């Protein structure tokens, strides 16, 4: 299957950042159509399209919209999650950079569908260029009188992975530390300021105008129906010739993405592992390269489509170091609220350090898996799982390599591509890890 631009359509050659150009490419016709349609009919249309959340959870968007509490006497809010920070993922950035008006149009259509006039776009603080593009696009839309009474506020984050988790995002948007809430109640009932809130990812919202333009029935047939309709913007990175974003129909195989579009592995190296959906998902091995990129096939293969971030890993990489680096990330980003995640990720880092240094015994590997098991499913949000799942999968799929570390140290002996990688946790003075590294 080849690339198919729907969300990114019109921007294949150059970014579509001017309102006039976006309109010439058909932009804002879907909004006009939507505003002539009854809200309930629009929600039906979203249900029929099969559109599922592109942030990683893959929940049907129309269903989420239909859960919104009615008659509460409170306003309904739409919140767009632009806090993209799952390692390997850079697709929302591309969408905001190339088709900012499509995201805004998606906000306005969705706002009409859920009868809301207050929209917040929570964009990660580091995305400065994208914020500026979105701000300029919003100003154009406002000047062109397209808002029709809807207020869109761009709210910048300030550097915290956890704020990509929806309830932490809402806390952060309320001006607090970004710590997840316990659920229920879900945001559809009690979200922003305890009011009914629909919260969706950038790519999901930017797909809404596409569905209106094509018609839900037609959109539902794209990709890999019934569970994986439509396209996704896949972020390809790691040891691959052509890294970047590729919008593809779901069901395209990993092989097509990595080899046909990505140009394969550079420097004559061999493929060793593939992370198919951002660093929080279980790893796949080279024999699974023909797995289609859709939800069901990925589940059968033992992994997840996640955020659509495909990280290619070649044979220069030590899997213990990969596990350590991934664990360090989640330890750094754990908000500290739930004990299994706060303490467990730190334990994982310490044990993996020991294994990596060739100082661990058999009991340490068992302990690592035990710690993973004690994190999984035991926290308010999936951050702990996001550390435990991939690391447990590295041990499972590369057991021999872990065993070799226990028996006689790293087989790569200082030549791994991740050797000595200095993580942010290492530079924190309060971190015991930093003391170890500096000693």
């Amino acid at each position: 299957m080849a690339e198919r631009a729907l969300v990114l359509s019109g921007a294949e050659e150059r970014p579509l950042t001017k309102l006039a150009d976006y309109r010439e490419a058909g932009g804002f016709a879907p909004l006009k159509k939507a505003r002539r349609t009854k809200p309930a009919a629009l929600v039906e249309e979203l249900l029929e399209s099969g559109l599922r959340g592109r942030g990683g959870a893959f929940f049907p968007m129309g269903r989420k919209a239909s859960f919104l509490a009615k008659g509460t006497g409170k306003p309904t809010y739409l919140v767009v999650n632009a806090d993209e920070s799952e390692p390997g993922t850079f697709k929302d950035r591309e969408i905001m950079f190339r088709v900012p008006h499509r995201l805004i149009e998606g906000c306005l259509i969705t706002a009409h569908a859920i009868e809301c006039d207050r929209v917040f776009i929570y964009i990660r603080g580091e995305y400065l260029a994208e914020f500026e593009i979105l701000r300029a696009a919003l100003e154009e839309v406002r000047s062109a009188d397209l808002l029709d009474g809807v207020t869109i506020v761009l709210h910048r984050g300030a550097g915290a992975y956890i704020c990509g988790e929806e309830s932490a995002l809402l806390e952060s948007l309320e001006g607090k530390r970004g710590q997840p809430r316990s659920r229920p109640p879900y945001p559809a009932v009690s979200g922003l300021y305890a009011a009914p809130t629909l919260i969706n990812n950038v790519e999901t919202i930017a797909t809404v105008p596409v569905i209106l333009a094509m018609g839900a029935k037609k959109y539902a047939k794209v990709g890999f129906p019934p569970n994986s309709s439509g396209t996704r913007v896949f972020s390809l990175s790691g040891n691959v010739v052509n890294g970047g974003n590729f919008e593809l129909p779901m069901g395209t195989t990993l092989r097509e993405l990595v080899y046909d579009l990505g140009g394969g592995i550079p420097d004559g190296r061999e493929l060793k592992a593939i992370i198919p959906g951002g660093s929080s998902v279980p790893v796949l091995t080279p024999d699974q390269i023909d797995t289609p990129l859709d939800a069901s096939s990925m589940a059968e293969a033992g992994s997840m489509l996640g955020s659509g971030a495909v990280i290619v890993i070649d044979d220069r990489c030590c899997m213990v170091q990969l596990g350590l680096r991934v664990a360090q990330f989640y330890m750094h980003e754990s908000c500290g609220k739930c004990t299994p995640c706060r303490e467990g990720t730190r334990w994982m880092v310490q044990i993996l350090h020991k294994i990596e240094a060739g100082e661990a015994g058999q009991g340490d590997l068992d302990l690592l898996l035990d710690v993973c098991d004690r994190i999984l499913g035991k926290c308010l949000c999936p951050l702990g799982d996001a550390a435990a799942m991939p690391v447990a999968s590295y041990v499972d799929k590369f057991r021999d390599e872990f065993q070799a570390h226990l028996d006689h140290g790293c087989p790569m002996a200082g030549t791994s591509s991740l050797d000595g990688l200095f993580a942010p946790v290492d530079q924190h003075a309060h971190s015991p890890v930093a003391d170890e590294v500096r000693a």
Partner: protein
Amino acid sequence: MSTRSLHEEIQGVMAQYPSSRSATLPALRLAQERYGWLPPQALREVAEALGETPAYCQAVASFYDMFHLDPVGRHLVEVCTNVSCGLLGAQQVLEAFERELDLHPGDTSQDGEFTLRTIECAGGCGWGTVVAVDHRYREPVRPEDVPGIVQELRGG
């Protein structure tokens, strides 16, 4: 920089939200833009404008990586060392900055010109190694690009 006072700017931002507390992050950012970091005086001003306590503002600021509760250099060099950049040699890029700036990651130079630090995934994985220089992404950066970047920042 705006001729309005920090207090006035924060009041302007607060008006965008149904709850003034929602302006905490934007207010801290505005204060940091003025002071370069968030000294106690900045936290007091933010708190006063928002109607919160300085302790509340410090608690929030300390949660987020982009807020600096200690002074940072006039130039901030941030190297992504997460997995995708790591696979493409982020460590070598970091070491090149360490050499050129004579700094360890996390440290600020004696003259207050530079802070070097590593950051988690910046979202430029397909074009690694990503380096944010004064919040603007450079991608990709190779070790051999580093002397030129440092020279540029030194104004030479």
